[in-house]
């Protein structure tokens, strides 16, 4: 069994309205000094058997993330 974690984040130059809304709320609720908030997604994928790493990268870059506006990082934790 392997656990694969894919973090997907918006490219830095792309507008992140969600992050902005969170930043506003954090400030209003008393957290000082916040200069930026970016909100991303995290996929935790459990796989039985051999892990096809090439396939994983292909899907992370096309299905789990949208290459036009997002970047991803992928790490495999053998369990």
């Amino acid at each position, binding site marked *: 069994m392997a656990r694969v974690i894919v973090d997907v984040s918006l490219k830095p130059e792309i507008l992140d*309205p*969600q992050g*902005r*809304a*969170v930043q*506003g*709320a954090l400030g*209003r*609720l008393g957290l000082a000094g916040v200069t930026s908030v970016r*909100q991303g997604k995290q996929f935790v994928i459990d796989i039985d058997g051999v892990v096809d790493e090439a396939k994983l990268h292909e899907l992370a870059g096309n299905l789990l993330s949208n290459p036009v506006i997002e970047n991803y990082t992928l790490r495999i934790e053998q369990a």
Partner: protein
Amino acid sequence: MTTLLGARIGVVTFPGSLDDRDAARAIRFAGGEAVELWHADADLKGVDAVVLPGGFSYGDYLRCGAIARFAPAMQTIIDRARQGMPVLGICNGFQILVESHLLPGALIRNDHQHFVCRDQRLRIENTTSVWTRDFDFGDEIVIPLKNGEGGYVADEHTLDMLEAEGRVLARYLEVNPNGSYRDIAGLVNAQGTVAGLMPHPEHAIESLTGPSTDGRPFFTSIIASLAAGVRA
């Protein structure tokens, strides 16, 4: 149309509220006085009850209702609701109520992943709350439903408790439109005063613009309840 003077019902506008005008219209249709409340004002202008309308408060960017819960108006509403002031949260308003922990459980993304807008059949299963006393138990109604994150979830224990205490206000019939556990469309707190409803009764008060006029009793109920002395 009944005209019961003196029922002042507030409708809160958050940044991103959309159905605030409709909620106010529904209150007026039922004979009440709709009072505009602004999210940034902690003062509730002496209203007897509050409707939290549908929409996308703060863009619903974090979780629906998560940011609105912290608005100054909500701080007062949460306190007053705990003391018995009637509150109805419709759609986004329901989400705000669960985020405020005035109602148990949570509302998550629809199981089919899409926003859905449909004329939804419901069964009314609680007619003792201040918001539903003008219904008969088991009434079937059709009112609009429109949400992207309307899947009601709670742990088994909570669900059993809601059922046992008769706190399921309405249940989806024919189609479960969003994957809600036990087809729950709405619920109410133990006192019968704070209610949350995913579908939109305020869009079903005129046959001209809604699929029915089945939404009216929600608003006549609260006015009757207030007249009967349910005030915080």
